[in-house]
């Protein structure tokens, strides 16, 4: 009798285990489908999430960020288009994550790349990046991304140059940033800002080679700024723009053209801006 009981029990265990494995497979398939098709989730507004975190804001931010990442990853995997609600969810998630831990770099980077290239929600991307710039005061990347967004997407060169300048003042920023910012500000109609920025940088730069290249750029911008100033005077007095640089010389608005340190010739662009045939780039050294 006892042996039979034991046999029945073992049978139940084995059959049960078999059924369980089969069912689990179904359960996982079902969950996958449910997750794929469900409407977007809901993110707690940060003021509640902060309380809900029970003192573990960092950990909760990590979890929430992972959730957001998985949500986006799943949609990408099935090549599904994200609806407006999906994007709202993503933005709300990143907002809450960065409120919980405003120093967390990953959500800023994710927001900066997805929200600009994919969906062109520049306001959201820039708002996130500005929050990051305020908190991660040692990180040059966030103001750099902001500068890039303003320059590339929004065509706001002045603002872009401002952010690049901010980025270049931060530790370990690449040495090309000052030059980039100066160029950008020049195109952005603010040669004078570029000059001031360069002067501040030159005073702080100890590296001799970089210092020299900054000095040359400053000289070029000063030249351009001077000619532009004279063009402006010309325009005010004559009511028209000068035809070319020589007209300025001939009419006595400028005694002598400033030296163009990159070796090019000064030009007046149709927009009234002054530029050079060298495009402010040093000619390649001859061997």
């Amino acid at each position, binding site marked *: 009798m006892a042996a039979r009981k034991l046999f029945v029990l073992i049978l139940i265990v084995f059959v049960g285990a078999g059924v369980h494995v089969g069912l689990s497979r179904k359960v996982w398939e079902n969950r996958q489908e449910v997750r794929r098709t469900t409407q977007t989730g809901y993110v707690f507004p940060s003021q509640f999430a902060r309380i809900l975190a*029970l*003192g573990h804001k960092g950990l909760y931010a990590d979890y929430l960020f*992972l959730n957001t*990442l998985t949500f986006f990853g799943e949609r990408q995997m099935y090549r599904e288009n994200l609806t407006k609600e999906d994007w709202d969810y993503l933005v709300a998630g990143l907002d809450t994550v960065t409120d919980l831990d405003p120093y967390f770099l*990953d959500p800023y980077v994710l927001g900066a790349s997805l929200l600009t290239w994919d969906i062109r929600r520049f306001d959201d991307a820039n708002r996130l990046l500005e929050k990051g710039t305020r908190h991660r005061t040692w990180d040059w990347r966030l103001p750099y991304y902001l500068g890039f967004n303003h320059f590339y997407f929004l065509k706001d060169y002045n603002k872009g140059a401002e952010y690049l300048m901010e980025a270049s003042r931060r530790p370990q920023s690449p040495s090309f940033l000052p030059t980039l910012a100066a160029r950008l500000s020049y195109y952005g109609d603010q040669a004078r800002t570029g000059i001031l920025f360069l002067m501040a940088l030159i005073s702080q730069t100890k590296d001799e080679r970089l210092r020299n290249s900054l000095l040359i750029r400053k000289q070029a911008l000063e030249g351009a700024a001077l000619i532009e100033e004279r063009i402006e005077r010309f325009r005010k007095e004559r009511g028209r723009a000068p035809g070319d640089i020589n007209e300025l010389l001939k009419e006595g608005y400028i005694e002598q053209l400033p030296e163009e340190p990159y070796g090019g010739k000064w030009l007046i662009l149709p927009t009234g801006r002054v530029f050079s045939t060298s495009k402010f780039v040093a000619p390649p050294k001859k061997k």
Partner: protein
Amino acid sequence: MNRVWALSVITYKEGIRNRSLFGILAFALFVLGLNISVAGFFMREVGKVTVDMNLSALTFSGLLLVFFVALHLMAKDIDKKTIQLVFSKPLSRGEYILGKYLGILFFVVVSLLALAVFSIATVSLVRGLYPNYFAGFSWPIFFTAGCFVLVQLAVLCAILILFSTVTTSSFASLIFTVCVYLVGVTIEDVLFYIQSGFRTEAISPVVQEVVKVVSYILPNFSMWDFKLEAAHGLAIGAERIGLGLGYAAVYIVVLLALATLFFQRREFN
């Protein structure tokens, strides 16, 4: 003082012999193991996630130690009436409270130090796996945050002792201590939320006053929370450390004095 010392040593030994310790250790090791596997899911901030998980694991384990083992150490004497035996010795009630507190504190510190060794090993391992993603990491700040986990637990132990002296059931003191802890870790955000202009609905002035009063009575655990600083390697000002330690020390002294007061009036039969 010798008597206090003897009592605290006995309490400590009792704690270390508790079997639940293995469960808590297993839990901590599980979370630290999880950390190693989860860290790679993140794009850049592997170091931050690692520190978050380590400090939270230490905190959770510490809470388990206080809520289960320390509670047991405190309640057992009263529940099993062995306290009668203790008081037959020349030991005042104040000395009893102090001895118990020191013993429990010593037990929590030693257990947490053991866990800290595993935590350091985990951080070093993850750091070895992803050396490029630990730029902001700093051991001194990590250790400071770890020490303040201990400070939080020291305050919590004092709260536990106070409730053990006023309630007759150990379960009630557990519930009260957990409640005080939950309020303590959230009170700052609740208070600032009420004061901020963000809220959508008007909050009655009575509630506002109650929250304000509570914020003075219960400890603000956020003062001892440096997890965010440790995660990003942000420097912690000496003022915050000093203020935090002072706030904790004064609070513990007041709680233990109150506990002694209640305990002296209590009758055991």
